[in-house]
């Protein structure tokens, strides 16, 4: 059962990054869209993301629940030492979720719309930034459970080059995913071209940000790059991801909706997969080396068993209905 739980955990994280990422990304794309196109772009974003918005952020909640039920030490260490970035991420989640709905459901369209838009776009930036910072901190090895000062206990773990570079990387991934996604939905030529251009720009930004991550890792003395490249397995995965870049650019030009999405999703999954595989089963790298792994922090016995069953049973209900939801709205859109 432990493996069932671990698979669900990885799946939830991946889906949150992909689906939730496209969702955050919509705000980032909006931020860099020329003002005259923004109104149209908002409509498209609302129509495509609106129906699944709620379901997207559920992946985050599932992740949290799996952590506190199945891996309580991991959840506790994260919430104690990364309190500040978690809090900032939460503020971002509140801001964008509420602004997204408020701006659509406000019965009167007036100056308030400007305020909603500002909150929406900026919190769309802040949320993935801190999400990435948190992810980066988990492997940066600066979390010190025996810290004695405020700085070393609660600031140092996340406030250094590596996590921040991962944060920026996450922001560009989200923007990129959203641009690729929205591109396929736009009927209007002008908008479609704008999204395609943005997908390209954001793809380049992602590659650059990825480079910065490796650089930051070197500066902080995290041997991520070298190890990923020397392990043949992860090397192959990374090469595949890189190779698919070429394909992606080719299809971006050809306006292939499904293929571009698949490739974009593939790239991001591969990066996550390579890093995950490299660290597995470790989940949090602690200062001093007593790492928290998915094995040593699991609440073995009945908690994991019942959690596994709950997830399996839930999956039986959720996955088909989610697929049906996405499918029926896609079909409805293409009909209309």
């Amino acid at each position, binding site marked *: 059962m432990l493996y069932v739980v671990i698979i669900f955990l990885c799946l939830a994280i991946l889906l949150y990054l992909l689906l939730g990422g496209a969702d955050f990304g919509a705000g980032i794309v909006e931020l860099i869209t020329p003002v005259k196109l923004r109104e149209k772009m908002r409509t498209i974003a609302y129509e495509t993301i*609106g*129906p*699944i918005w*709620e*379901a997207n*952020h*559920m992946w*985050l*909640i*599932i992740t*949290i*629940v*799996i952590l*506190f*039920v*199945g891996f*309580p*030490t991991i*959840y*506790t260490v*994260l*919430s*104690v030492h990364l*309190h500040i970035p*978690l*809090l900032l991420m*939460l*503020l971002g*989640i*509140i801001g964008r*979720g*509420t602004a*997204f*709905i*408020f701006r659509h*459901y*406000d*019965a*009167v369209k007036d100056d308030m719309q400007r305020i909603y838009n500002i909150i929406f776009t900026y919190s769309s930036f802040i949320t993935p930034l801190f999400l990435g910072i948190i992810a980066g901190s988990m492997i940066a090895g600066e979390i010190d459970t025996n810290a004695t000062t*405020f700085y070393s*206990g*609660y600031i140092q773990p996340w406030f250094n080059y590596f996590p921040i570079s991962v944060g920026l990387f996450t922001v560009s991934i989200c923007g990129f995913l959203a641009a690729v996604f929205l591109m396929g939905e736009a009927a209007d030529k002008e908008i479609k071209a704008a999204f395609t251009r943005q997908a390209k720009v954001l793809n380049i930004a992602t590659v650059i940000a990825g480079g910065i991550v490796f650089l930051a890792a070197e500066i902080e003395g995290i041997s991520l790059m070298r190890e990923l490249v020397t392990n043949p397995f992860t090397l192959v995965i990374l090469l595949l991801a890189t190779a698919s870049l070429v394909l992606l650019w080719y299809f971006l030009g050809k306006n292939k909706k499904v293929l571009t999405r698949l490739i974009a999703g593939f790239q991001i999954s591969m990066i996550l997969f390579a890093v995950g595989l490299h660290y597995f089963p470790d989940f949090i790298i602690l200062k001093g080396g007593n790492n928290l792994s998915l094995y040593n922090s699991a*609440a073995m*016995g*009945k*908690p994991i068993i*019942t*959690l596994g069953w*709950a*997830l399996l*049973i*839930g999956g039986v*209900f*959720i996955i088909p*209905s*989610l697929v049906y*939801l996405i499918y*029926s*709205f896609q079909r*409805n859109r293409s009909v209309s």
Partner: protein
Amino acid sequence: MEDLLAARSQMALSLGFHIIFACIGMVMPFFMATSHYKYLKTGDLHQKNLTKAWSKGVAIFFVTGAVSGTMLSFELGLLWPEFMEHAGPIFGMPFSLEGTAFFIEAIALGFFLYGWDKFNKWFHWFTGIVVGVSGLASGILVVAANAWMNSPAGFDYVDGKYINIDPVAAMFNDAWFTQSLHMTLAAFAAIGFAVAGIHALMLLKNKNKQFHWKAFKIAIVYGGIAALLQPLSGDLSAKDIAERQPAKLAAMEAHFETSKSAPLLIGGLPNEDTKEVDYAIKIPGALSFLAHGDFEAEVIGLDQIPEEDQPPVLITHIAFQVMVGLGMIMMALSLLYFFSHWKNKNWQTKRWYLWLFVLATPLGFIALEAGWTVTEVGRQPWIINGFMRTKDAVTPMPGIFYSFLIFTAVYVSLSFIVTFLLYRQIKAVPTTYEEGKDQKKALTPQ
């Protein structure tokens, strides 16, 4: 402000905020399904417009409920890491099932809100029901988790370790049923009265009478039935607590000294220094009867509880009085409604009649918050009743006061915006859904 106090205040604020939206998510889908059903059966356009008007309101509330709930799942760890480290695996079962319930709710809501005229009408109606049922299920599940904190079960506590964990036994702890029942009724009562009150106000303003009258009726029937059952279920809860948490009962009733045929106090200001209650009306023997079903029975007082295990008496007692008092008022109003419905329809058009319901708009919510105050403050100083103290569970991170300030600012602004949006929605009703005229416009999906 001390960190522990700040953390407690932040938790109370977040939960007190979330519960309002959670109740809306649990109850409004049933109101909508009712009007939607009436529309599908009779083709009455008012009912259709009502369904749509309500669902717009619900979308605003739903997102606020979702984000505040998401914050809560993080806050449990941010504020009470020591508690979560031990309690997580034990009381996690309802939370992991709740995840499924939320998911289904979110998916069904996607179908419901965005699916007008896109699907088979009965399938569309059914998705609305699914939203309601899964919302209700998630409410019951979290309350079961909270009930575990009051009545811990499903583990052995040996040398400071929690072993032999059984999450299923933990979920079906002794308190889960009474608490969930009472909470579910409370949600229906609170939302029923609030919605009825808003539509009563519109009726007083003579706007769209037919529309608002239909809305009022649906809301008050749900709310009224719940409010009639509420005291019965509350009595079950009280009997349960007398067994399980005598300290809480004693604090609720400001019962300082253990005694036989204990009196029930109505009102009164407990003085924790002199251990006296001033200005209370005493009904002899009634407390013994309510707690144990026997006018002679002995009721444990605070004198039998060690000083360091006593909950704050003043807050718990007042909160309890508020809840029960308001519960009685709501019960009386429900009786008034059902009486007027069967015996005297005339009254229903009178201004005094509508004003009574307008004034009752916030009562359910106040009772709800008061009830939670009883449950949570009455459990102090324990976070897991009898096993872990709140002060031992709080995060080691200093400066929680600042996080409390931030959260307060966020919740205050969200409340303002939501109220403002709702006000605009309600104001827009006559223009969007003008009676007779413009029916075509009202028919087209947004």
